[in-house]
């Protein structure tokens, strides 16, 4: 039996994960619902003054996005771990880090991209100006892949544990701090009419770093978790 080429293996795995996700359509909307729900809780908690909401809105939306990403992380490797496909990836002829990257890309398309689409709505709810909403979408587009990539390391480390969920948040949330800072600040600066080029450059740098390094770390972690 001849092994498929690397790009074909990547594409096949991506397609398989997307297909699996669309077969369970109800689960698809859960992180999205969570995102909207958490964001809409804040005005109820802190009061609905438009000026106040406009000031804290970027932070709220980004923290909610962080939590939604965290909540959905467990599904990256969980089902593959339970039915044994993960071990097949491990012994396959393809490098594990590329397969991990395919899984993370699929995960981001399923859970990260919907956040991007629903974010303008939340921006309107929190009375953000148009410039902020556009920046919000830009930062989400650059930032949520980083969340998925870093999160994959955490999931790979905890996938063998019976109660990995709480520990996962302990491991991953401190590492999310830079993304949160740059992204929320960019939205805030855009609202104040300042330049956001520096923020976006830094977010892109984080993304480049995460894309190149975290699949390697996640693959190493998976090998340890499954040993």
């Amino acid at each position, binding site marked *: 039996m001849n092994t498929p080429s690397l790009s074909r293996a990547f594409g096949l795995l991506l397609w398989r994960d997307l297909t699996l996700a669309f077969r369970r359509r109800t689960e698809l909307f859960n992180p999205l619902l969570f995102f909207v729900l958490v964001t809409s809780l804040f005005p109820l908690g802190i009061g609905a003054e438009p000026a106040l909401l406009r000031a804290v809105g970027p932070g709220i939306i980004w923290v909610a996005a962080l939590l939604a990403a965290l909540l959905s992380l467990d599904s990256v490797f969980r089902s593959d771990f339970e039915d044994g496909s993960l071990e097949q990836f491990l012994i396959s002829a393809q490098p594990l880090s590329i397969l991990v990257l395919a899984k993370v890309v699929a995960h981001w398309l399923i859970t990260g991209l919907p956040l991007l689409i629903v974010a303008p709505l939340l921006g309107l709810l929190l009375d953000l100006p148009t410039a902020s909403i556009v920046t919000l979408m830009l930062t989400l587009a650059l930032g949520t892949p980083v969340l998925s990539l*870093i999160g994959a390391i955490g999931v790979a*480390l905890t996938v063998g544990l019976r109660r990995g969920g709480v520990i996962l948040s*302990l491991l991953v949330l*401190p*590492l999310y*701090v830079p993304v949160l*800072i740059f992204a929320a*600040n960019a939205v805030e600066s855009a609202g104040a009419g300042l330049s956001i080029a520096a923020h976006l450059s830094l977010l892109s740098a984080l993304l480049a770093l995460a894309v190149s390094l975290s699949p390697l770390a996640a693959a190493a972690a998976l090998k340890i978790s499954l040993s």
Partner: protein
Amino acid sequence: MWHFFHQLGSPKHFYRIAGRWIPWLAVACVVSMLYGLYQGLLVAPTDYQQGDSYRIMFIHVPAAWMSLFIYVVMAGAGAIGLIWHMKLAEVVAISSAPIGASFTFLALITGSIWGKPMWGTWWVWDARLTSELILLFLYLGVMALYGAVEDKRTAARATAILALVGVVNIPIIHYSVEWWNTLHQGPTVTKFDTPSIDLRMLIPLLVMAVAFKLFYVVVLLMRARVEVLERERNTQWVRELVGSP
């Protein structure tokens, strides 16, 4: 020379050699700490601006240095354990985590006590404080992961990866927090308004730094010995040592 290092790598010899070193290092630690505290608390001049309350610096600053130093040691030992499968490096890495977390906690607490009379508040979202707090979370994450994985060799390797990921992230976190702080235009409080530090303050500070390092080594060796015993509990030499059949 090489023979000595090879011996140190084997758990049995490490246990013996570490046991012999601990008393000497402990004495050196106590002596330097007493000297440093005496010099720092009684001999060093009073600060012209902060009065006597600056003297908490002799605990706070070395503790903050140690918190970073131990994290780097932990990640380095973890990397050695991952690459060369050295059992002892894994033991050193995992034994360092609680000590590092304690130093980080100490630095935060003393910083907070120092901040109350100086800044008028227990906590400021200052760049250094915030990154120190995140460092504490990183330590706690490492310890939580080690505690959660049942097989201790797997646990040590998993925490080594986490520590390495953390080491890549610490500079990023630090600079992002610093930048966030400057953007927010928070209360800009500098710790030392004087451009350089008086020599009579600097020497006790360095002595205390040495004392803290020695303390770390002593506690590390003690913890590592216990860890070695626990891991090797089914081997011949541990049975002979404990005297059980």
